[in-house]
């Protein structure tokens, strides 16, 4: 079989006719698809503050650990933590303020 035969065979196929109910079946499927609600978008508004909070807490943790890494007495860790507690508290307050516009409406009662 040469290229000419191949061209002839592949170009000469008899076309299929659609089944009688094909178009109606397609339109039923299309209507069903159009009635489905659109897919939920990814919740970036919740995801990004969460990631930001994790990063801030990680940085704060590293800062705390760096402050105590040269000390060999675990007993002073509590004292160190106490010293940075106001900073951590400030971070927590800032985070809470950032998240409030997002989560606040969920906490208020609906009528």
């Amino acid at each position, binding site marked *: *079989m*040469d290229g000419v035969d191949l061209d002839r065979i592949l*170009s000469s*196929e008899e076309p*299929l*006719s659609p089944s009688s109910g094909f178009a109606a079946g397609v339109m039923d499927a299309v209507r069903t*698809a*159009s009635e489905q609600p659109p897919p939920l978008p990814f919740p970036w508004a919740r995801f990004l503050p969460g990631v930001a909070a994790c990063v801030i807490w990680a940085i704060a943790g590293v800062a705390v650990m760096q402050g105590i890494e040269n000390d060999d007495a675990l007993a002073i860790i509590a004292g160190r933590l106490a010293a940075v507690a106001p900073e951590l508290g400030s971070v927590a307050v800032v985070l809470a303020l950032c998240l409030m516009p997002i989560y606040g409406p969920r906490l208020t009662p609906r009528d």
Partner: protein
Amino acid sequence: MLAGDTAAFSAIVERWQGRLINLAWRFCRDRSMAEDMAQDAFVKAFKALATFRGEALFSTWLTALSLNCFRTSLRSRGPVTVNLDLWRPAGLEPSALTTIENRERDELVRQLVATLPPRYRDPMVLFYFQEMSVAETARVLGLPDGTLKARLSRARDLVGRRYAARMSDRKGSA
């Protein structure tokens, strides 16, 4: 323009149903499966209609979208197998036998195309489907013309070799 308009979309289905079924048929060689694949492609086209910007011909856009849909269906349904029924009724006239043998040969070649790896199968099917030009086939596949021609050439070689191997097996088993 027609996004979300099911009534208007029915005109598209009426207009393009034959083309999509026949295109799907050339990929799977199974009528029922071809209609299922074409239906999936229409539903996908309906959902994606808003993304059609008119930069390409509607036929090019619909064919490219359908091709993606068919590839996904074919991947999930497993490989197409070559399956020819070699049974022949007894007492056939020589001319009738020749006709049957020619039809079997043609069908074997078409099935061999459907079983090629996708990178060779897709150009081959599209190029011969309604005699699309090299440029149009390349546009649908998103390939440069030269790459498409190379793949078509390689695909023809593969089909020719597989056909020869098949014939050799058949003679060996006869």
